């Protein structure tokens, strides 16, 4: 029972975390907002003063912004599609009675622990490089011209790498959910003559719904900010073909030193994330009992 004393105590215990997170959320955001209305360049000290909406007009009016926005959506959507569908299929497969399940699990989840720059670089150089990569050798073995993945299909290549990193996570979560499904329920359905497809649709999928929600939530949080994979492979190019919002802000603000425009881009990124968050949190709030 919460007495006045324990209430005070719990407030004191929560204070550091709440204060730290409040500062972390408010201070930089207010600054970003402030800069976004300023003329502010690290290279050109003459550029000062209130800019009004100029930075926003510049950023949003730039064709590279529209492309980055579309790329961000394709990147998040593509990876979610591959990992959720692939994760369900892989979880179903690993849930079958098979030999060596322990080792298989270890092999399958391994990519999740590979740090993003390493994942990107081993795909770029060891796998997708037209001259030395495994895929290049494979293409040549079939008498085909090796594909220069990062130049010809830059965004697709980034999606493949990111999906490879997140498929294990989806699989692991979905497999855990699948294994908590009671055997009786399945057998009962089987007895009633439900075929495999019906069992999947009416029993397994609803049972996994909660896990799927979680997978989508967690992945979206991380996928909106994909950065290292782009930085070490395509550098956002060719042109802006593989630039997402995160990389665009980095490019404008840090590489080109245009703090004003970079900040405007940052504000737009926060707004987009909040729109996504609003819907996600509602879905999760329903699914998580806090």
């Amino acid at each position, binding site marked *: 029972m919460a007495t006045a004393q324990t209430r005070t105590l719990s407030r004191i215990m929560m204070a550091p975390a709440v204060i730290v997170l409040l500062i972390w959320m408010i201070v930089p955001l207010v600054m970003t907002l402030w*800069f976004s209305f300023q003329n502010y360049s690290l290279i050109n000290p003459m550029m000062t003063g209130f800019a009004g909406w100029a930075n926003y007009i510049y950023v949003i009016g730039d064709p590279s912004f529209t492309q980055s926005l579309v790329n961000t959506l394709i990147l998040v959507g593509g990876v979610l599609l591959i990992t959720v569908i692939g994760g369900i299929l892989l979880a179903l497969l690993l849930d079958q*009675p098979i030999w060596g399940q322990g080792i298989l699990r270890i092999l399958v989840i391994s990519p999740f622990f590979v740090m993003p*720059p390493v994942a990107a670089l081993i795909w770029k150089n060891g796998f997708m490089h037209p001259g030395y990569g495994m895929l290049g050798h494979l293409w040549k073995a079939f008498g085909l011209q090796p594909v220069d993945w990062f130049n010809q299909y830059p965004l697709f290549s980034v999606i493949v790498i990111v999906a490879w990193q997140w498929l294990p996570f989806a699989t692991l979560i979905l497999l*855990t959910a699948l294994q908590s499904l009671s055997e009786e329920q399945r057998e009962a359905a089987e007895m009633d003559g439900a075929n495999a497809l019906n069992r999947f649709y009416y029993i397994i999928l609803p049972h996994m719904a909660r896990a799927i929600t979680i997978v989508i939530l967690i992945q979206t949080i991380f996928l909106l900010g994909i950065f*290292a994979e782009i930085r070490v*492979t395509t550098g956002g190019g060719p042109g802006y073909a593989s630039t997402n*919002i*995160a990389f665009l802000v980095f490019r404008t603000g*840090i590489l080109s030193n245009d703090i004003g425009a970079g900040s405007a881009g940052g504000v737009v990124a926060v707004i987009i994330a909040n729109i996504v968050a609003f819907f996600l949190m509602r879905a999760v709030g329903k699914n*998580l009992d806090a």
Partner: protein
Amino acid sequence: MARTVSTQTRIGFTALAWIVALLLFSPILWTILTAFKTEAEAIAARPTFLPETFTLENFSAVQDRSDYIKHAINSILVSVGSTLLGLAIAIPAAWAMAFAPTKRTKDVLMWMLSTKMMPAVGVLIPIYLIFRDLRLLDTVHGLTLIMTLINLPIIIWMLYTYFKEIPVDILEAARMDGAELWNEIVHVLVPMAVPGIASTLLLNVILAWNEAFWTITLTSGRAGTLTAFISSFSSPQGLFLAKLSAASLLAIAPILLMGWFSQKQLVRGLTFGAVK
């Protein structure tokens, strides 16, 4: 598994699962094998599977090129340091929310998680400028601070779900038996909380170790962690596939091993206990 299936079905599923698993693992396997090849063999027109001449020279070359050990130490300092700092802030908060929940607790938890939804690029520029003015750019403690902040919501959520499972009855029973607060903490609370705290620690070390955005943008040579170190290999100074593989292997090996041993905690932790 109580299910009975024919041996034939079992063999079929086993074969399929192994093929898929090996395909997914192949980039890592290929990196491990390449790390022990000579540079010439690594980029030969006819690829070899196992190294023909087994060599360790790539590993020493990686150290000579840009001091792997220094970056590894930075990684350890930042990931362990930020996790400990995060735990110090999060344990009391999670404890209070789990054992003295109010009507607003759920909202506070949701709000904390929502700070994780704030895209890093939205705050990169102010943080960059603040760090520049406070001379925190390219320092281990500056990076540790950022890492603590970005992982704090996750740490609080994980701890909260673990603490929530500690039965309150036991605490009350201890209190009824006249246990002093101190005894209650040492003999009842700590032993029950430690496993959850340990899992949280493990997972956050993994998350911090692999974090790349802030390490790349806020550090360069001095305080660079392994993610920054590896990213420096992307600059086009010719392709050193064998050396890159050796560096990659060195960077991922510790966390790969930790990850293998903490699968169960991983599921619990990363889903906030919502999937069991």
